[in-house]
């Protein structure tokens, strides 16, 4: 399999702040076609392409558009999720900083597909320095007639506004993002009503991840068949992977869906750094399972990863070498979730901290075998009852580690200690 440049086609080749430059490189062709199509025709192309959400859940993109299109309302919204809060994930940052016009174009096409005239880009608080790039790109699109009133001489008008987050992971959850854009505390809403019926400001809304939106314009331009020529049957197209951790060549790569995880690590990213052994891989972001070195010979494709109990998620691959301790990694992972729980529902608010406490107890040699049972029980409660995806999936890493690295936990409990930790559980 070869590295491909579909989403990354313009990186470092055009001036990202200049819509004209983007157009010269083949940009806005998708939008041009969309402007002459009906809403249903646009949605049909996306349906045929098989495009699925790149933010985590892998929901078919056309279905979101269908819901919002079939809801009658004079005001509808397109929201671009640029909150990119997954630890170690920076694929959206590349798209936002290197090719923002492609995102704006994708949003305008989606706006046309549902009859929305306003789009919001909700950008991660830490990306403050990208604000000027985005504003410049938006302005340039307007100046060149690709955004604003009567786009490219058509009767379709669409505007894009930028909103900044303030550093809350939960605001990557779509309804919490709506709350945040509306100026409220970032907490998720329950569903139904679904965003396609009642979303941002109570209006029908389609929210998609930056990467998903970046796919829209090329699909409209080159067609569904072209798109399906890449990737797998269930997950067509390419995927951006943020490769982080103990590999030789870290970075953001674009590959067709279905690339083998083992090949990705060893063949394309140069294997484990400093000639060390592989301990574990967490593929799919902070809430993905930790798998061991015998479990990495798998295709990275939405359905396959899901069927093996994981989640391709945002495509972040954290490679962990054998100088690390898995209990320590899990403790660190749970620290993240306890800090990022919004506190709205009981299981997540209390449970994330309790899981962290229990793992800390084990990590520092004070644990008992009964603590493992407590972790499993609490994990089940949270997965079954938490309000939103954050609390429901925060338990996945620890549960997977208990299954795939049971020995390491027991080593800490027996005070037999894993070779890489001192007696207080600190990694040496």
């Amino acid at each position, binding site marked *: 399999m070869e590295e491909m440049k579909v989403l990354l086609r313009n990186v470092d080749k055009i001036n990202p702040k200049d819509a004209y430059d983007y157009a010269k490189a083949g940009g806005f062709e998708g939008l041009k076609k969309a402007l002459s199509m009906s809403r249903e025709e646009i949605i049909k192309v996306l349906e045929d392409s098989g495009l699925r959400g790149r933010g985590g859940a892998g929901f078919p993109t056309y279905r979101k558009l269908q819901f919002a299109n079939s809801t009658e309302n004079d005001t509808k919204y397109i929201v671009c999720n640029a909150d990119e809060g997954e630890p170690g994930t920076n694929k959206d940052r590349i798209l936002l900083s290197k090719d923002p016009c492609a995102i704006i174009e994708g949003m305008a096409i989606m706006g046309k597909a549902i009859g929305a005239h306003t789009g919001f880009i909700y950008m991660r608080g830490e990306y403050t320095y990208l604000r000027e790039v985005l504003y410049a790109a938006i302005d340039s699109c307007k100046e060149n007639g690709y955004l604003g009133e009567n786009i490219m001489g058509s009767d379709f008008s669409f505007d894009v506004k930028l909103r900044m987050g303030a550093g809350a992971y939960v605001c990557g959850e779509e309804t919490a993002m709506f709350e945040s854009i509306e100026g409220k505390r970032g907490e998720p809403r329950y569903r139904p009503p679904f965003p396609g019926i009642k979303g941002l400001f109570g209006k029908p809304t389609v929210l998609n991840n930056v990467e998903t939106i970046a796919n829209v314009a090329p699909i409209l331009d080159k067609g569904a068949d072209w798109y399906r020529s890449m990737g797998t049957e269930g997950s067509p197209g390419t995927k951006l992977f943020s490769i982080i951790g103990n590999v030789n060549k870290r970075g953001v790569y674009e590959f067709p869906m279905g690339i083998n995880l083992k090949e990705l690590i060893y063949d394309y990213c140069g294997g484990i750094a400093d000639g060390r052994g592989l301990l574990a891989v967490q593929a799919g972001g902070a809430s993905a399972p930790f798998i061991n070195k015998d479990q990495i010979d798998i295709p990275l494709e939405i359905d396959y990863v899901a069927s093996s109990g994981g989640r391709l998620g945002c495509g972040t691959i954290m490679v962990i070498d054998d100088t690390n301790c898995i209990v320590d990694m899990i403790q660190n992972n749970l620290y993240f979730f306890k800090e990022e729980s919004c*506190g*709205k529902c009981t299981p*997540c608010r209390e449970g994330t*901290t309790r899981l962290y406490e229990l793992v800390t107890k084990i990590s520092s040699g004070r644990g008992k075998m009964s603590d493992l049972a407590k972790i499993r029980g609490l994990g089940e*409660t949270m997965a079954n009852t*938490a309000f939103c995806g954050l609390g429901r999936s925060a338990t996945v890493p620890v549960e997977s580690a208990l299954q795939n690295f049971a020995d390491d936990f027991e080593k800490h409990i027996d005070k037999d200690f894993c070779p890489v930790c001192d007696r207080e559980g600190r990694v040496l």
Partner: protein
Amino acid sequence: MINLTIDGQQVSVDNGASILDAAKVANVTIPTLCNHPDQTVKAVCRICVVEVDGRPGLQASCSTPAEEGMVVHTASPKVIRARKDIMELIMARHPMDCLGCQSNGSCELQAVAGGMNMTKPSKYDMDIRKAKVDKSSPSIVRDMRKCILCGRCIETCSEVQGITVMAKENRGYDTMIVPPYGKSLVDTPCVNCGQCVQVCPTGAITIHDDTMEVYNAMEEGKVMVATIAPSVRINVAEALGEDPGTVSTGRLVTALKKIGFDRVFDTDFTADLTIMEEGNELLYRLKNGGTLPMITSCCPAWIKFAETFFDDHLDHLSTCKSPQQMFGPLIKTYFAEKAKINPADICSVSIMPCTAKKFEAKREEMNASGYRDYDVVLTVQEIARMIKTAGIDFANLEDTEFDNPFGLGSGAGLIFGATGGVMEAALRTVYEVVTGKDMAPLEFEPARGFEGIKEAQVDLDGTIVKVAIAHGLGNAWKIINMIKEGKADYHFIEVMACPGGCIGGGGNAPRTWEKVEERRKAIYEEEKRLPVRKSHENPWVKQCYEEFLGEPLGEMSHKLLHTHYISRHDLLGS
């Protein structure tokens, strides 16, 4: 209609019903904590989760719509295990001091835990939230260690009352519901309405307890004088476990005598007095080009609200004191003289449906008698607890009459307890004073009921008087904005801070609209039974004017029965 199966039982519910609603139809009780019948669905406590065939995980029954063919299990092993775990997570943060908690016995957390067959408090290490108990307010005590973060108080304070004194701070495990910037309640625009107390499911927000002050005064040998507000007789039996709307006027007088009060007077009397003063003030303003619309001033939460948010329009407020604060000085002057008691030896205790009355009695200017006009204010909840503490079998008490010289209140005074009551009472008197005729019918229907803002017109022999009635401060906001914009062409406006009026007040047993409706029916039924139904026909009021006050708006009235207001705008900060 939607047909579904709850625990093996077929039920049909309306479209839009939740699983929780459907379970009620099936007579299945699903435990809830954040859910409140008068509020929006929150779905945050997760105690009400149920298992639905074909769906992953568990579903919150309060927020999951019932669907055709759904098969629901409300108490499967999976559900029970999850609920118990959630309860243990809550209990590991909750102070286990139920025996010393004001909400002991009325706490929803206690009740839910009690129904869950708990065998130990928690498998998790106890870690009670670090928060100081805020006793700064004379009306409300906040103990955020006991908070379960249901969010009901926030909804009431923000959405119903439109004040937003408190909100969530921090996140995750450290989330806490607090006034902004670490302020104490007393330093916020809190109007002391106590509606947050009404909806708090635990002991996290409670009424400032002043019962010991009463016992202390008794021990000091004070002459104990109690006065009972109109809605107290409607609400106290309910607080003692009887049905909502059970009227217990005579029994309450008996109980108070047993507790140790020497005299028990009826605040309906000063409600009548308020009508005499306020009605005449309205007529004076109408005749002499005074500031209109005139707005009632009986409600201390509304007054503080106006002083904070409406301080550049305070001349709209009637200068009349509330019935409580009219009674205070009369007890320590008129009554003291008549009964030949040194006012310094009197302890006056006002029994109220209201938490804001505690604040009102402590206002600096409330010393027209030369003494603190009211020494103690007790709410319905507190007096109910005192009755229990005294071991009184309230349900089986004989009736006792009120004491003289304020022996009787009119029906007009009684209906002060419900929204629109002050307006109706005032119109009965004003109509007759102006036209010389009885208002017919006496029942002024446009003022009754729970519509947020009620409007009406009355023809006073050719002069059309336009009136409006607002209850709940969210509705008061609307009226205020109309006045600010110059769009309120009313002559007279009644405002009550609590939704439903005093029968829905913050000092009562926990409210629901269903209960408040029962109380409303009771107050109007009771008023029909009373011998006198117009304030100006109350013989004791006439006597009080003849013997002591002179005439409405007269010099003595001015000294004892009228007041002034101050700006509290600085409570809003910069």
